[in-house]
C-alpha cells in the first residue's frame, strides 16, 4: 500500500498510534511468553528441579532433532507423516464432499441414510483400528484409511448442513428463471457454501493429523507417530518431545496454509 500524505487530525493520529502500539505490545508479549516458557523449562531442567529424563529440556530437544536429522532418518519420518496426512486430508475431503452432494440431491437417500450417518459419526473410529490392519495391511495404507475414516463423516455432515441451509427464496429465484437441478447445484448451492467449505478444510487439517498419528501408533514402520511410539518404548523421552515439537510446526504450517481461504470467503 502506498503511503498517503494526507494530513490527519490530531485525534486520528493518536488513534492510529494507539492501534500500532497495541499491536506491537501483543507481539512482544507473544514472544515473551514462549521465551519465558522455554527459559524456565531449561532452568528447571538444568538445576535438577525437573528430571530431564522425564521432562526433557529445550536444549536436549534441539540436540535430539539435530541427531535425528544426522542419523535417524528424521526427514523420512517427516515425509511419511506429511504424505499420509495430505493424501488422507485430500481424499477424505473429496469423498465427504461428494457424499454430501449425493445426499443433497436426493431427499429420499438422505432420509434413508441419516441414522447411519449419526451412528458412524458417534463411533470412535480408533475402535476400527485392528480391522483396518486386517483389511489393508499395516503401514501407510492403514494410516491413510484411518485418516479418511476420521474426517469423512464430519465433512459430509457439515457440508450437507451448509447445502440445506441455503435460502429457499434463492432456490425459488433460480427455479423462476428455469434453472435445472444441476444448475442450482453448481451456480447456487456450491458457491453459496464456500465459507462453510473453508471451515471444513480448517477442521480437517487438525482431524487428519489426529488420524495420521493414531494410524501410526497402531501399526507403522515410519512417521512421527512411529517415532513417538519408538521413543517411549526405548525410554528416550527426548525423541518423543522432539517429535511432538516437529508435529506442532507441521500442523500449524498446514493450518496457516488453509486459513486464508476462510478469511477470503467469510465476508
Amino acid at each position, binding site marked *: 500500500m502506498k503511503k498517503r500524505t494526507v494530513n490527519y487530525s490530531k485525534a486520528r493520529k493518536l488513534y492510529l498510534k494507539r492501534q500500532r502500539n497495541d499491536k506491537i505490545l501483543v507481539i512482544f508479549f507473544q514472544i515473551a511468553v514462549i521465551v519465558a516458557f522455554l527459559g524456565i523449562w531449561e532452568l528447571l531442567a538444568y538445576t535438577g528441579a525437573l528430571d530431564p529424563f522425564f521432562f526433557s529440556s529445550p536444549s536436549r530437544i534441539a540436540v535430539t532433532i539435530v541427531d535425528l536429522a544426522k542419523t535417524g532418518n528424521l526427514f523420512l519420518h517427516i515425509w511419511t507423516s506429511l504424505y499420509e496426512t495430505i493424501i488422507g486430508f485430500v481424499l477424505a475431503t473429496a469423498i465427504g464432499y461428494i457424499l454430501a452432494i449425493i445426499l443433497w440431491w436426493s431427499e429420499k437417500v438422505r432420509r434413508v441414510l441419516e441414522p447411519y450417518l449419526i451412528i458412524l459419526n458417534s463411533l470412535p473410529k480408533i475402535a476400527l483400528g485392528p480391522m483396518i490392519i486386517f483389511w489393508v495391511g499395516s503401514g501407510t495404507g492403514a494410516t491413510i484409511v484411518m485418516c479418511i475414516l476420521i474426517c469423512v463423516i464430519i465433512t459430509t455432515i457439515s457440508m450437507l448442513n451448509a447445502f440445506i441451509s441455503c435460502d429457499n427464496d434463492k432456490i425459488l*429465484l433460480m427455479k423462476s*428463471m*428455469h434453472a435445472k437441478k444441476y444448475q442450482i447445484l453448481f451456480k447456487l448451492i456450491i*458457491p453459496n457454501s464456500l465459507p462453510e467449505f473453508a471451515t471444513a478444510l480448517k477442521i480437517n487439517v487438525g482431524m487428519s493429523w489426529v488420524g495420521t498419528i493414531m494410524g501410526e501408533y497402531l501399526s507403522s514402520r515410519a512417521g512421527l507417530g512411529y517415532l513417538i511410539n519408538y521413543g517411549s518404548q526405548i525410554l528416550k523421552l527426548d525423541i518423543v518431545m522432539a517429535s511432538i515439537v516437529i508435529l506442532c510446526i507441521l500442523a500449524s504450517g498446514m493450518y496457516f496454509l488453509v486459513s486464508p481461504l476462510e478469511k477470503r470467503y467469510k465476508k
Partner: protein
Amino acid sequence: MKMLLEFKNVNYFYQTKENEINALDGVNFSIEHESFTSLVGPSGCGKTTILSLTAGLLTPSSGEILLDDKPIEKNDSRIGYMFQRDHLFEWRTIWQNIILGLELQKMKKDPKKLAFAEELLKKYDLYNFKNKKPRQLSGGMRQRVALIRTLVLEPALLLLDEPFSALDFQTRLKVCDDVYEIIKSEKKTALLVTHDISEALSMSDKVIILTKRPASVKTEIKLPFTEASPLAKREDKEFGNYFDMIWRNLT
C-alpha cells in the same frame, strides 16, 4: 378489452401432515396489459400463494390461470419474479448477477440479449457499478439490480412479492419511485403483493382486496390518480380517502 392475466375460479389446497388447508377459494380477477395491480389482504391470507401459482411454481387444485389466453406452465418463462429481498449472489459481480437468467437458459452468448442487458444498466445508472460486488451497493441500488436481472429475460408479467419490505422507510420511498419508473418506462405489467396500504395506493392503477383465508376476492378498487410518481400520489387529496376505504375493507 383483452386481458393479460386471468384467474378463473381458482382453488388451492395445501397438504400438510395434519390436514388439508384451503388457501384459495374461487379466486377471480384479471389484469390489463401495462397496468399496475396490487393485491392486499389480511396477513396469511394466501397472497404469496397467488404469486406462486401465477409463476407456475405451484399448480391450482382446480380452476384456470391464463396468461395471454394460454394456461400457465410449470416455471412459466413469461413470468418474472421479484422477491422480498434482492437475493443478489455475493460471489458474482453486478454484471454476472444480471445475466444469471441468460446463463441459466444458455443465452449468455446472444449478442442481442447482452446488448439489452447493457442498455438497461446504462439507462438506470448502474453501468459504472457493473464490475462491483453487490455488497458495495446500497440497498436501493441492489433492489434496482434485482429488477433489471428480472427484466433482462423480458417477462410479459412481473410479480413483486413485497419487494420493499426489507428496506428502511426513506430508502423504501425512493426505491418505490425508481422501480415504478422503470416498470412504466419498460411498459411492463406488474402484480404487486404488499401489506402496506399506502404502498399499494401509491403504485397501482387497481387494488384487489382479498378476504381472510380461504382467500377470495372481496372487492376491487380502481384508482383515479394521475400523478406521475408514487411519491407525488401520496400528496393527492384523495389519497387519505382511498386509504380509509381499503382499511375498512380489510377489517
